[in-house]
């Protein structure tokens, strides 16, 4: 399809979104990521039955925690699509890229630069 999506998106492949842990999300922010989103299969279509539901719950937990520590829960998001929906994948990437650009850089990254 040769679809383009923002080059700011770095893809980390996992066997299933059920593998994504809250710790992975938090570490990404600690290391300076401006936003994190998980893209899972359509709800009800998980090959492992509940992987994408687990991911959604973990994303929700991460949102709450990031709000508490002042990073902002809106920087993390869960999306669902089927593996045949390339255009939608690109659309989600653009949506997230735009949202993060509006929010600005990760405050942790800025604070670390200031401290250095």
């Amino acid at each position, binding site marked *: 399809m040769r679809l383009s999506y923002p080059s700011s998106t770095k893809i980390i492949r996992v066997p299933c979104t059920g593998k994504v842990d809250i*710790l992975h999300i*938090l570490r990404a922010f*600690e290391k300076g990521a401006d936003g994190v989103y998980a893209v899972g299969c359509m709800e009800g279509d998980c090959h492992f039955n509940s992987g994408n539901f687990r991911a959604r719950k973990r994303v929700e937990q991460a949102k709450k*925690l990031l709000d508490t*520590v*002042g990073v902002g829960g809106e920087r993390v998001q869960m999306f669902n699509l089927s593996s045949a929906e390339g255009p939608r994948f690109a659309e989600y990437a653009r949506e997230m890229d735009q949202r993060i650009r509006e929010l600005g850089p990760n405050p942790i990254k800025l604070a670390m630069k200031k401290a250095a």
Partner: protein
Amino acid sequence: MIVADRKPIEEIIQQVEAHRNVLILGCNECVTVCEAGGKKEVGILASALRMYFINNGKDMRIDEITLERQCDHEYLEEIRDRIDRYDAVVSLACGVGVQFMAEKYLSKPVYPGVNTCFLGVTEKRGLWTERCQACGQCILANTAGICPISRCAKRILNGPCGGSTKGKCEVNKDLDCAWQLIVDRLKSLGRMDDYEKLFSIKDWSTDRAGGPRKVVREDVQI
């Protein structure tokens, strides 16, 4: 197992913000099973605290260690060579571990990272319920394996009381009446004769009424 629940992160932030080098100390036993204070929860709390303090311009060092147990000398000794690097410890063990840590490292402030709740079971993931109050005089042999001390709101020995309706307790309509459960199980075991036996007054001196308790086993002492 001992069931604990996570403390709000805001409370932990308040406890540690006066310090500079903080150790988050997890426990691999009960609190790992109830997902409150194991290695993963240590990682989450430490990561959240690091982000909070960096974000607030505070130079804090927050390290993570998870011990096999915090209720035994030999495991707590594993951090003796490192403990001086820290000004304070947040222990994610149950209240037992927090206290043993405090007893062992007298000069180190120790803060609890979890609320210790009860002795219970994992009914399913994310649902833990109470089963034992450690009263020190187990009567389960006579109550069909169901404990009226921990599961009856009144802790009565000859139940049910008048508040039992359709198998539920008057305290909470979602709470099973322990004595209804006992009667049902005695029936299915064909042991309703046991129900006719009255319990005499329980000796509560082995419960908390007798003050802090101890078990002394000279046969295993060296």
